[in-house]
């Protein structure tokens, strides 16, 4: 087993952070050793402390103090609200840490350009969390495309339809914390950017990663929110053209309703629909994130009276086949480039902002 890299977790506002902490807490072969966690929010910190209760971890309410106190760490995981990412990037780079950013690096184009500029002369690893590269179905899709078995791509369809995390993570439903500023979804609208679209950069990345095609035109619509109380959008559908005029469709919405319970339950009736369909000149490939479903109705299930669709466990053969593992391999110098780079993350943001602009202007946006 390889030595895990030392990680400082700057912020746990991102709903994925508890998952990384559970990995460290429960998996003896986890590629990261979490040295310290910082968060100013007592409730979130209490949750992380509970997850990591059997591990020796230090806790800070001020992330800058944590960075200063642990020069022995290899890397910083940026896990705060999106609004704070830019500052965290800057301070982590000032101190020379490797950086792992959750989801969007920033939704602000000027901040993104600045980060990209700084990163060009930065010798350390920067990986941006863009999900599903290590999901076998999508990796297989990439192989089919890149090997030519599907032939020339004629259309691409991808949905990433989830429940809304905003009930359980209220900060996720705050337009300023999520998008960085308050921008109505369209003129005069009573809900704002920063919802389902901001939450889902990976569909835009996946289309580029699988097909090798770039986005050229974007047109998007947003329906009235299913959840009337929500201040950010819960529905967006995006279509347009990739290189060569190839039509695409992406839906990154929160269209699957969740149970009204205080703790997050990604269970009922199916938390996530992630369908990929690629039509090529020589063939057609379709895949669902839920490759091997398990249906459960049980007295002691968290949702006892409803059918729960869960995934059967997937075999993990190579520890490097995870976002955490590939980042650790990069930091150790065993891998030359991150699985998903800062440029990849900012590219997804550019397309997402084009979709927001399209909704606002009700017109096609060229990229």
């Amino acid at each position, binding site marked *: 087993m390889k030595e895990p890299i030392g990680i400082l977790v700057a912020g746990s506002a991102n709903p994925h952070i508890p998952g990384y902490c559970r990995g460290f807490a429960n998996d003896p072969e986890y590629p990261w050793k979490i040295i310290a966690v910082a968060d100013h929010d007592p409730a979130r910190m209490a949750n992380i402390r509970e997850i990591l209760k059997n591990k020796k971890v230090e806790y800070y309410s001020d992330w800058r103090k944590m960075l200063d106190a642990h020069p022995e760490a290899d890397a910083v995981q940026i896990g705060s609200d999106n609004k704070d990412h830019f500052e965290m990037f800057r301070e982590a780079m000032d101190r020379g840490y490797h950086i792992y950013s959750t989801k969007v690096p920033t939704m602000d184009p000027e901040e993104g350009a600045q980060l990209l500029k700084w990163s060009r002369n930065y010798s350390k690893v920067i990986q941006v969390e863009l999900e599903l590269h290590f999901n076998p179905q999508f990796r297989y899709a990439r192989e089919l495309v890149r090997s030519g078995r599907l032939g020339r791509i004629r259309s691409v369809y991808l949905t990433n339809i989830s429940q809304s995390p905003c009930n359980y993570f209220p900060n996720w439903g705050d337009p300023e914390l999520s998008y960085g500023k308050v921008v109505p979804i369209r003129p005069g609208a009573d809900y704002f950017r920063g919802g389902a679209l901001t939450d889902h950069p990976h569909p835009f990345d996946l289309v580029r990663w699988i097909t090798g095609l770039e986005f050229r035109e974007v047109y998007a619509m947003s329906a009235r929110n299913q959840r009337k109380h929500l201040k950010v959008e819960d529905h967006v559908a995006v279509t347009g*053209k990739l290189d060569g005029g190839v039509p695409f469709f992406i839906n990154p919405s929160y269209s699957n309703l969740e149970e009204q319970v205080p703790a997050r339950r990604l269970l009922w009736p199916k938390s996530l629909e992630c369908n990929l369909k690629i039509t090529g000149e020589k063939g057609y490939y379709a895949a669902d994130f839920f490759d091997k479903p398990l249906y459960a109705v049980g007295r002691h299930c968290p949702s006892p009276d409803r059918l729960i669709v869960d995934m059967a466990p997937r075999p993990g053969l190579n520890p490097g086949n995870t976002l955490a593992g590939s980042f650790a391999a990069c930091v150790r110098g065993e891998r030359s480039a991150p699985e998903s780079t800062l440029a990849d993350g900012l590219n997804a943001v550019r397309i997402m902002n084009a979709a927001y602009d399209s909704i606002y202007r009700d017109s096609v946006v060229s990229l």
Partner: protein
Amino acid sequence: MNSNQIFPLSSWCVFQGIRNHMGECGELRSLRFTWQRPAKAASSEENFLYGTFVQLLGLARELADAGLKKLHVEKESGRNNLFALAAFDSGVVAEFELNETLPDSMPDTFFIKANFTHGHLTNQPLVGHFNEEGSVFADESGLRQFTVDSCDPEIAGSMLENVMTLCRLKGTPEMSGWEQLAEAVGKAVGQ
């Protein structure tokens, strides 16, 4: 399509079922129509656009209970393959995926998914595109439904193929007490 032409898709039981349950799920917010057919079943481009697509738009308009406000279509040039977004005056958005260019080994797939403020109505399976194993690869030689179990490319096949490959790579788990079970089978079949 003029007003004298028939409108058969309004007889589609899925559409009728959704319409019948409309009051049970709160207010409608968005719709998704999936219409997939193999190329051998494709209609003419005219019928595809002005027959099928217009009819599906009509179903959406009826469910949205409002006039069409905006329609945007992305169509593959010269083929019956399009994505479309339609906005209705009620704020409902309908998404359309119509593809009649699939390999001839593919079956038809027709779904409607309706998302409401307090529920969903759909004939779309909870899991999988149209099969519970999740992955489908089709070309003119045939249709394969399979699982992709791991990022390692050699594990992509049927459930049993994947299990056998896993055992080869990671070792076969031991099964204790198998002799008892084998004896029970022997007795049960009279051997």
